[in-house]
């Protein structure tokens, strides 16, 4: 067989070789592509799953802390407790952390009224730890409790510890998040006033009905000033559990088996969709939208109940 180039043979592949090579190449390429796609999908899926798990853990920690601390250092009575639950709204009262050590709980004494919507209170340690926009517990003689919202706090002479502080409060609402809030026909003399922190969790807003909102601040009109705690919460069900084993989706003050003294725990059932949707086909997979169920004991209330031999209320 004569050859034009003596030093270099430029023989091509035969058709069979080419076909075999192409088939093998195709198989390998196909396998590699499938493998790569699967790996990418799995990674995206687990990333989304991790993301949703991390978000639900953050939510769980926030709720756990608030529920465990509910009602610490505040008096709980059958008609006035630290936790209110109405449909999907969960409201929790706590005594705020303080930067001074002046006693286990911080009460100040009300001297009297300085108007229909105004309380005159005596300073303690030279001040009153209530600020505008904060809720406070008002306890009149005879255990009459009200949850009031301070709209203005004025100290006529901050340097003089003897001059009383005037707290203007909202006196137009019958109830503030289902706690009695109107101070009509109640004497302010010798009443006590205690600053509280309110956290309210509820789902839905105008912008996003699947957003879980948390409100820690309240406007002077008595409305929540919420922030979005988590988005993509497609399920949010809270139930209250009581000593006798019953559960309820709202706490009713008229039902004696569901009073505030008998509350033992809260159960929260939620489903959190991932923040970021990587692939539409992964949305319905079990990893991405896993339902969670948390149960948190109102430990502080339960400890009070144990200490008071089963009767935390008075």
């Amino acid at each position: 067989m004569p050859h034009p180039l003596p030093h270099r043979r430029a023989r091509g592949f035969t058709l069979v070789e080419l076909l075999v090579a192409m088939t093998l190449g195709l198989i390998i390429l196909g396998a590699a592509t499938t493998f790569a796609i699967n790996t990418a999908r799995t990674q995206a899926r687990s990333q989304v799953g991790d993301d949703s798990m991390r978000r639900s853990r953050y939510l769980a920690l926030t709720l756990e802390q608030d529920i465990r601390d509910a009602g610490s250092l505040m008096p709980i009575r059958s008609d006035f407790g630290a936790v209110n639950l109405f449909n999907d709204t969960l409201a929790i009262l706590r005594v705020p952390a303080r930067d001074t050590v002046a006693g286990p709980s911080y009460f100040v004494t009300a001297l009297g009224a300085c108007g229909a919507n105004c309380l005159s209170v005596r300073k303690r340690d030279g001040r009153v730890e209530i600020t505008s926009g904060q809720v406070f517990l008002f306890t009149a003689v005879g255990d009459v409790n009200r949850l009031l919202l301070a709209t203005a706090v004025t100290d006529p002479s901050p340097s003089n510890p003897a001059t009383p502080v005037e707290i203007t409060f909202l006196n137009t609402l019958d109830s503030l998040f289902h706690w009695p809030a109107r101070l009509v026909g109640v004497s302010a003399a010798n009443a006590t006033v205690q600053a509280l922190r309110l956290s309210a969790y509820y789902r839905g807003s105008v912008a996003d009905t699947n957003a879980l909102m948390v409100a820690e601040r309240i406007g002077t009109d008595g409305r929540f000033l919420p922030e979005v705690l988590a988005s993509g919460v497609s399920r949010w069900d809270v139930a209250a559990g009581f000593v006798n084993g019953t559960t309820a989706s709202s706490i009713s003050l008229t039902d004696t088996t569901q009073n505030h003294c008998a509350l033992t725990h809260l159960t929260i059932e939620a489903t959190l969709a991932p923040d970021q949707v990587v692939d539409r086909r992964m949305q319905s997979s079990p990893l991405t939208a896993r339902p969670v169920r948390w149960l948190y004991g109102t430990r502080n209330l339960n400890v009070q109940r144990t200490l008071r031999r089963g009767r935390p209320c008075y």
Partner: protein
Amino acid sequence: MTRRRLSSGPARRDGFSLVSVIIAMVLLSVGVLALAGANAASLRVASTEGTRSVALQIARSHLEFLRTRSSTTLASEGETRVDETGVAASDGTFRRTVTVRTISADILSVEVKVVSPQEQTVVLETQVPRTPW
């Protein structure tokens, strides 16, 4: 038939021998199989860790519930089938057992055991004071 192997010139255009091609393919497939195996193993680990954390959450919730109960009513519970949220269900894939033991006159030990569908076991134990009410 023409001999393909030509010794003329510096650039010999020899192909690989069948043996070396087979060895190369075997090596390649070993590598690819190992890669696939590692991938499958990591998937399995991720999945079992996921169910373990679900089992842990079930155990935590139930232990928390038992802590809210009066110590006079605490008692051991036999195996209960629960779903992934910890709610008793006949078709649940997790199994939950409660063991209550008396440690002393004042203290009870409460142990919650949850077994996942992959037979992983999570055991949580706490001690609660015995109260007469």
